[in-house]
């Protein structure tokens, strides 16, 4: 039981990060149909900027805020300089553009920072909390709490604000949204900014546990993408569900089977799910119109 709880907590912690990355994918995808492979780089920026700003003497909370602001700026620039000029390009072209952006951002991080792995001190100390025989790191609670706060904020934003409704309307039907006077370009920029912020928050929260480096984003982006697909592309709830499921699968298979193939779990899962349900768990089934 203690073992089970242990795996459950570590699975939820990692899963919360995957869920946040997947949520970032979904936001951008809904607003613009772009699958943003640079999503993992937002996570990297969040972690790396915090590390280096803190090392430069900034208090941790300020360093974290700075990291989020820089990530948002990068997200907005990515939209304005790389996505907007390529409007109307094919899906493959757009995917390659965002992969190019991901390689570029990694290159910039490598030059600006370094090639080492970096950690942050845990926010509330390293003394594990005992819970029914399992040891939980306080930082895990920070990650889970941060993720829940992010989801709630996003939900309130989409559900309660006019701007949020504009985002939902754009996701549902871009042309119709434009016809009723929504500036879809602003909505897309907003989606990139918000995705970057969510990614950066995930990066800041997880760095004390997993460390970060200039190339930490690649695998996170792939797994986040898998999580978004698992839930069904375009569904925010699906993204969260997919992320948590992936984290749990990974943790339990590493704990009970073998950790050698921990990274393979996400991809085996997504392949099996797609074979059984070609539109993901919560995806809409499309009827072909001819």
């Amino acid at each position, binding site marked *: 039981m203690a073992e089970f709880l242990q795996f459950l907590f570590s699975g939820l912690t990692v899963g919360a990060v995957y869920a946040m990355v997947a949520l970032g994918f979904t936001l951008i995808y809904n607003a613009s149909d772009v*699958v943003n492979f640079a999503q993992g780089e937002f996570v990297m920026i969040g972690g790396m900027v915090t590390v280096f700003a803190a090392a430069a003497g900034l208090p941790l909370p300020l360093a974290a805020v700075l990291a989020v602001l820089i990530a948002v700026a990068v997200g907005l620039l990515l939209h304005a300089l*790389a996505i907007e*000029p*390529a409007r109307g*390009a*094919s*899906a*493959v*072209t757009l*995917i*390659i*553009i965002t*992969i*190019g*952006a*991901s*390689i*570029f*951002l*990694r*290159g*910039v991080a*490598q*030059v600006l920072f370094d090639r080492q792995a970096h950690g942050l001190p845990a926010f509330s100390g390293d003394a594990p909390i005992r819970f029914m025989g399992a040891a939980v790191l306080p930082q895990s609670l920070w990650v889970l709490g941060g993720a829940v706060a992010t989801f709630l904020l996003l939900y309130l934003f989409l559900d309660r604000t006019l701007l949020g409704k504009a985002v939902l309307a754009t996701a549902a039907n871009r042309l119709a949204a434009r016809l009723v006077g929504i500036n879809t370009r602003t909505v897309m920029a907003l989606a990139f900014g918000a995705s970057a912020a969510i990614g950066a928050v995930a990066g800041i929260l997880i760095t004390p546990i997993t460390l970060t480096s200039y190339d930490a984003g*690649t695998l996170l982006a*792939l797994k986040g*993408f*898998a999580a978004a*697909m698992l839930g069904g*592309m375009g569904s925010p709830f699906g993204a969260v569900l997919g992320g948590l499921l992936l984290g749990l699968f990974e943790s339990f298979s590493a704990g009970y089977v073998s950790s*050698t*193939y921990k*990274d*393979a779990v*996400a*991809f*085996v899962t*997504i*392949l099996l799910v*797609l*074979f059984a349900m*070609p*539109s*993901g768990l919560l995806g809409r089934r499309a009827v*072909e119109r*001819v």
Partner: protein
Amino acid sequence: MQMRAVLASRFFSLFVLAAMIGLLPLAFPSGYYFRVAALVWISALAAIGLNILMGQAGQVSLGHAGFFGIGAYAVAIGPAHLGVPPWAALVLGAALSGILALVIGKPVLRLRGHYLAIATLGLGVLVAIVLTNESRWTGGPDGMPVQRLVLFGWRVAGAETWYWVSGAVLLLGTWLALNLTDTPTGRALRALHDSEVAARVVGIDVAAYKLRAFVIAAVYASVAGSLLALMNSFITPDQAGFLHSVELVTMVVVGGLGSVLGAIVGAAVLVTLPQLLTVFREYEHLVLGLLIMLFMIFLREGIVPSLRAIFAARLRTRAAG
């Protein structure tokens, strides 16, 4: 009009390629250039295969380096662990890639768009993970040495030799790919790319043809992987990794989707650029990422189709004037 027909004919493309392979060495100041050019031919081979899947059939694969890796490790593991001669290992690797593509392609190719992208991506990453983890067979993340290729007592070694060998294989691969375009198979692939429903309604078994394109592309990538491993005498799992898959896709798109010559040009760009960029060393990723973005934003149709359009417009104005 006639000039355009010539430009589009497959003999023209083959002739240009053969002339390039034959004449380029005259301009090479050192052996290093032979090596880089051989790398271009090998990547081009993989890109041409992928182009049949992406350019003709319109199906994306973000995991094609997986097949490249299978071919590469076949010629490494076969001779080292199983006593299979390298040339036979190359053939076995290609067969294995083809069979894997056949088996896994069936469920994967039912998916569309982004779902197809993530499934193929997962497939490629899985191959890379297996190659990295099974270190008893593969040497793990550090890679493993590859025995020299010996053909009928001829030891294939040296940059110049590999230049000609890879060039010859590329010519063969190009010839086969060009052959396919204007045949029942080629037409079926291009038809289902434009409209799957219409293709089905005229009797084209869409699933079967997608699968054929997938298998062909896998075999091309596998052979290319084998050649690279044999030339370098060394192989690492990076060759099967996600980044290499992206490079292959970028070659096809940068050169021009659907254009065989384009795939070769794309390979040349993607292979030679990093070689030039080594001067910048730590700026390499930065510049590479930037260039990929710029190419995709400003040369969306790809280099060869864009050039063709410019050339055709020139011919028209000249004919008019």
